[in-house]
């Protein structure tokens, strides 16, 4: 696989969905593959079911921990509505991987707002992305043992596009995931990796 000079990622989800673990794995995988890396995330209030986002950057020398709008190569959405907030950060021609999974925000729960339709979300993201890859990651993870492994299913799918050797992913998962969850997460990663990319990658 050719090795881009820089790769920027945005991971977006809901507090408690595991975006932090996924971004840790992604950061470490880039570092062990020879990139300089930076990762940025915000803790705090977001734990309580609010929107969470982390940004991961790989490059020869990364300066800003934040990605500029229009520069991200990948948008990984752990939840559909959260993915829909970030397309402006994608570079034209970037790729979005979106978990086909909804968590209703309070305004939708109380009937004060509508949850946007999948087509509407797709249209928003496709205004920037060359491809929106919808993945039933939560369903796949639930089938493997726990829906919380959805994030690692998404990483497995993402790995199809990244210049990182399989052994590197394996050891990073081993090193970062709590020991009793390593097996589940390995299988989740493999399941994502085995998915057929819509662009034939």
């Amino acid at each position, binding site marked *: 696989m050719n090795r881009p000079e820089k790769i920027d990622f945005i991971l977006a989800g809901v507090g408690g969905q595991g975006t932090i673990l996924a971004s840790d794995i992604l950061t470490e995988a880039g570092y062990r593959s020879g990139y300089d890396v*930076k990762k940025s995330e915000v803790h705090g209030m977001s734990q309580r*079911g609010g929107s969470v986002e982390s940004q991961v950057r790989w490059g020869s020398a990364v300066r800003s921990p934040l990605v*500029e709008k229009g520069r991200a190569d990948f948008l990984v959405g752990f939840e559909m*509505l959260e993915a829909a907030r970030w397309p402006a950060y994608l570079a034209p021609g970037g790729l979005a991987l979106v978990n086909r999974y909804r968590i209703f925000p*309070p305004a939708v729960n109380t009937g004060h707002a509508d949850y946007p339709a999948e087509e509407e979300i797709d249209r928003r993201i496709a*205004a920037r992305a060359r491809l929106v890859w919808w993945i039933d990651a939560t369903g796949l993870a639930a089938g493997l043992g726990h829906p919380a492994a959805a994030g690692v299913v998404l990483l497995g799918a993402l790995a199809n596009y990244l210049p990182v050797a399989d052994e590197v992913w394996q050891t990073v998962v081993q090193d970062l995931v709590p020991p009793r969850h390593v097996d589940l997460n390995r299988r989740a990663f493999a399941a994502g990796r085995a998915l057929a990319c819509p662009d034939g990658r």
Partner: protein
Amino acid sequence: MPKVMSGNEAVAYGAYLAGVRVASGYPGTPSTEILENLVRYPGIATEWATNEKVGFDVAVGAAYAGARALVTMKHVGLNVAAESLFYSSYTGLTAGLVVVTADDPGMFSSQNEQDNRRYGQFAKVPVVEPSDSEEARRFTQEAFAISEQFDVPVLLRTTTRIAHSSSAVETVEGHPPRGRRDAPPSRRETPAWRSGDHAFPRDQQKYVMIPAYARMRHPVVEERLTRLAAYAETSGLNQVIPGDRELGIVTCGVAYQYAREVFPTASFLKLGLVYPLPAQLIRTFAAGVKRLIIVEELDPFLEEQIRLLGVEAEGKKFFSLTDEYTPDRLRNWAAQAGLAPVPEFPPVPGAALPGRPPMLCPGCGHRGVFYVLHKLKPVVMGDIGCYTLGAAPPLYAIHTCGCMGAGIGVAQGAERAGVKDKVVAVIGDSTFYHSGMAPLVNVLWNNSPVTTIILDNLVTAMTGHQVNPGSGATLQGEGLGMDLERMLRRMGFSLVDTVDPLDYETTLRVIKRHLETDAPTVVVARRPCALQTRFREAPYLIDPVACTSCGTCLKLGCVAVSKYGGTMSINQELCVGCGLCAAVCPQKAVKSSTGVAN
């Protein structure tokens, strides 16, 4: 081998490498993870304090006694500890004292975005500011050296974006960084240096700040600042990065990283020692460039001082005083100033999306109290913690919130002003031990008929479940807890009741009784934090036949309960089975999925 670490992990590692012996602090985003990491290293007495001032004094005592000491807090914590910063500036120390102030531009988790570099100038102590994790490690070590060389506490200022971003950090052979998987060494094994041959320095003129001695210290402080400014001229913390002579940029902290991307060819003066400033270095740098721009988050702290030097510079004329900087914002301002091009991207279509604010978790005990307050409608003076979310819709049950510990005093003031409302103060357990005890004694002393409700979830939940004196353990997981009710009765409160806030009927009855009592009273609403304990029982269901869609359950503001497409339902994955919605349902239409009637 270098290791990828967050800014906070890197500060902890740097402090360990510097040989810190005593560390204290109070949790506060974005500073909290420093002590949570430091506790994993051997040979250090690492402790949570009840509040920032107490933690600061613990660190001062250690530094007086000859042990390198660290104290950590968020920006507003330094307001609480300000007294200690000012006296320790006068006294100086025997061994190094580093004070971490973690500022929060953008207020991700704070009530304001004050710029604590100003505290350095105010208290006449140096301020060091890193711009990535490697600098966080290196500057922490340097800060200890500066502290000892100049006999001064040193402020290490970080911001959220430095504290919570990760990047590679150099490591030292034989002193590996510790991580999540390393258990804290037992407190009994630390500190290793407690040998007993170490006497406290009895130097009254230095350490007793009565006016006669303080008058002798003040000139020392001023003269020290002059020497620090001279040191700044050659300090390795400041760095010139030569580039194009058309544009020169003076910057510090994470803003430096953004500026390098937005102005890739400019010349840079990057300040790591942001107070006091190197006047000569700045003049020379300014003379070598055509236009001088200052890029700094929040206040024009560098800009004001640089202009006072008589150097022409532009900064806040273009760049905002408010909110966190991002590379996007900086690029847009730079474009408006004609300093950088703005790239065009295809627009993203679509209407505004529904927001997703943080909410009280399913199963949270705080909800039970706020629902009762929502029904009884007293005026409620709040405080800071997860429970501040009781102010949010649909409960709207908190009417003031200023800073930690404010609620009880504000309640007393409103009561003394003679409002017609019943007056209640709500305060979390950690906040109570932090700064709630003095105002509660004040309520009692002045016999103000305020009802104080202590929301006791046995932990400091907001900042990520740190222990507090009521939790029954120290940072190392050892020790014993407080008997809160006994303490309240001993203080002199005659009416103290404890309730389980998810027991709706009892909580309603007890709070009602307290509101009707014309005396200072306290309710302890005790329920372990549902998020921390991962509380989970069989979920509840709505019987569609019995349900009249009256919406009472929606008033609880629980994410698991929804009215979607006109019918009420409970999300079976999100519901943890606390049963509060069943208790408040007027139709008794909410039932446990186990089939057991509530």
